[in-house]
Structures are given as structure tokens and as C-alpha cells.
């Protein structure tokens, strides 16, 4: 089961790379980032950790790895970020919410919609944390360099 998840998340992320026209030689990395993010999310949720926390953690990891890849391959970070984030987007839940809205079951629908909103927020927060950490590390390194010289 886990193996199928790994393969499908890799292919899905790389396929999203094709949809967004990323350069051919970064497709593999795109798939890799997406696979790692989904692996973390999936194993956290399997161990009965709240899906909001799981999304936050995976978005953070995805952004950190994307930053590393962006520096290493000298490409814009968006390329890797996007393919890594896609599997985390709460598509299923928002579909459920929409279905209940159409079925006039507003109690459940609003609850689901609130959860979708929280998950989207968790993705954004994960990206923000990674960005902040990146800036801190860069500043720290620069200061160390200045003090050293």
C-alpha cells in the first residue's frame, strides 16, 4: 500500500510539472519533492495525527527541500514548491463540502468548509515558516561571514 502511494505521488507531482511547463531536467526533482511531502503527510495521518498538523509539517518540509533544490539547480523556487504542494491541497474535503452545500446540508457543509480553510491556511503557514527560517539562516551566515573576515 505504501509503495503504491510512493509511486503514484511521484508520478502525480511530476505530471503536474508537465502541466505547469517546468523545464524537462527538473521534472525528476519535482516528483521527488511531491513524493517526500506526501510520504510525510501520509505517514503522519496513518499514525492518527491531526491532518492540519500533518499538512503544516509536510508543507514546511516541501518548502525547505524546494529552497535547497532552487539554490542547488539555480532555478526559481516556485517550480518545486508547486509540485510539492499539490498533493496536500484538500481537494477531497472541498469536494465533500461542495457536495453537502448542493444537498442543502449546510450544517455539515460549513463544518467541512471551515476545515478546508484551516488546511489551506496550514499550507500557507508551512510555506511561511520555511521562508522565515531560510531568511534567518541566510542572515546568520552573512553575519558569521562578516565577523570572520
Amino acid at each position, binding site marked *: 500500500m505504501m509503495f*503504491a*502511494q510512493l509511486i*503514484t*505521488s511521484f*508520478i*502525480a507531482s511530476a*505530471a*503536474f510539472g*508537465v*502541466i*505547469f*511547463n*517546468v*523545464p*524537462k531536467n*527538473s521534472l525528476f526533482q519535482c516528483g521527488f519533492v511531491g513524493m517526500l511531502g*506526501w510520504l510525510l503527510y501520509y505517514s503522519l495521518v496513518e499514525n492518527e495525527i491531526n491532518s492540519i498538523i500533518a499538512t503544516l509539517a509536510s508543507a514546511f518540509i516541501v518548502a525547505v527541500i524546494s529552497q535547497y533544490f532552487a539554490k542547488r539547480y*539555480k*532555478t*526559481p523556487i*516556485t*517550480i518545486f*514548491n*508547486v509540485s510539492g*504542494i*499539490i*498533493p496536500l*491541497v484538500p*481537494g*477531497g474535503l*472541498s*469536494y*465533500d463540502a*461542495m*457536495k453537502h*452545500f*448542493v444537498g442543502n446540508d449546510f450544517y455539515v457543509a460549513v463544518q467541512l468548509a471551515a476545515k478546508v480553510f484551516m488546511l*489551506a491556511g496550514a*499550507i*500557507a503557514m508551512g*510555506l*511561511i515558516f520555511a*521562508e*522565515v527560517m531560510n531568511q534567518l539562516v541566510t542572515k546568520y551566515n552573512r553575519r558569521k561571514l562578516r565577523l570572520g573576515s
Partner: protein
Amino acid sequence: MDDQLPYNEIIDVCLLAGKIMLQNGAETSRVEDTMVRIAAAFGCGDSHSFSTPTGIIFSLDGMHPASKLIRVSQRSTDLHKVTLVNSISRSISSKEMTPEEAYLRLKQIEKAGMGYPMWGQVFAAFIASGCFLIMFQGQWNDFIWSCIAGGMGFSCLLYLHRLLEVRFFAEFIASLVVGLVAMFFVQIGVGGHLDTIIIGAVMPLVPGLLITNAARDLIAGHLVSGLSKGADAGLTALAIGAGISAAFVFL
């Protein structure tokens, strides 16, 4: 010395680079940063750039103040072009290019077609739909039906994008097609779970790039573009939801 700088050409190069990046899905902060860097590399250290998802203002200060505005009306996603412009800006920064050369290269990039052929993108959406089905706990025997529904939805989206100016309508119709095709398969008895098939097939339409860019723009303090991209993503999500709901109404 200062008089010999080709100010107009520098502004044109910066604006063209910014326009290509903005049109093809770069974050606003990256666009502004790239433009200021290019100007600095050509010797105009004092420049300002203000870009929103729908337009760019760029101005040079100093001896010959000048500014230009450019309107960006069409947006699509082609991260390959963003990468190319990024690498051009790098080689400008390391003083390997004159403004004329850079302008010619940028014009070539602007005119170049999409990186992958149309059928390649549709095939990617086709495969991705099936993979998402498996990731969201679907059954393997629904795999091919989700693939077909997703592929048809995405090809509808590509076709309608060319035909229509209204993007949200194209997204609405595409998700309507996804819903109807999935229902068709379930009705004739080959597909198992309608819900998982639709979820998998709808994923290629999800505005993932807009969401991440909106978040990154907001972090960077670009509130105008962050919020407007967020609104854009929200409208797209709404269009997709409305399309699926419309399919349910037909049932």
C-alpha cells in the same frame, strides 16, 4: 559617462523581462527583484519597480528620470519561460550581456511556444488523475475511469482557454465535464465510487500555482498581489465547485 547609458533600452529590457515572468506564473516579489537587479547590472542603481498581477510600473531615478507602465492582461502558466528569464537575468548580472542582446533574447523567449506539446499536457493530466485517485484511497479498478474523466476535463479546459476570454467559465465547463463523465461511468456500471473518481479527476484543475504564489507574495509583503492572487484562486475553486455541483443537479 552617465549620459552614454541607453536609458530607454534598459527600461525596455527590464519591462519585457518583468512582463514575461508575470505572464507565465512567477511571484510578484521575484518579478520586481529581477527588474531592479537587471537595471543595477546595466548601471542604473536607482530604480523602482511596482508590479501587480495586472500591470507593472518601472521607473529610473538619477540624472535622467524616466518611467514606463505596462499592462498585463493575459496570464498563463509556463514556468520554463520564467526559468529562462531568470537565467538571462543572472548572466546580465555577471555583465555577460549588453542591453541589445538581452532584448533580442527576451523577444525570442516571449515568442517561443509552450514547452510541452498539447497532447503531452493532456496525457500528464490523464495520468495525474489516476494517481490522485490512488492517493485518496481509491480502488485500482477505478484508475482508468478517473484517468479518462480527468483527461477529458483538462482537454476541455485547454480548448476553451483558447476559445474564450472568460477563464472561470472554462474552468466551470471543464469540471462539469469531469462530473458528467464520471457519472456516466458509474451509471453504466464500470466505475465503483463516484466520489473518489471525481476527486482524482478534478485535481489537474486545482489552482496550485496561484495558491503558493499568493502565500509567497503575502510573506514578502506584497499585499496587493497576494490578496488578488488569493481572490483569483478562490474564484477558480468556486468555478470548479460550481461545475461539479451543476453535474450533480443534472443527475
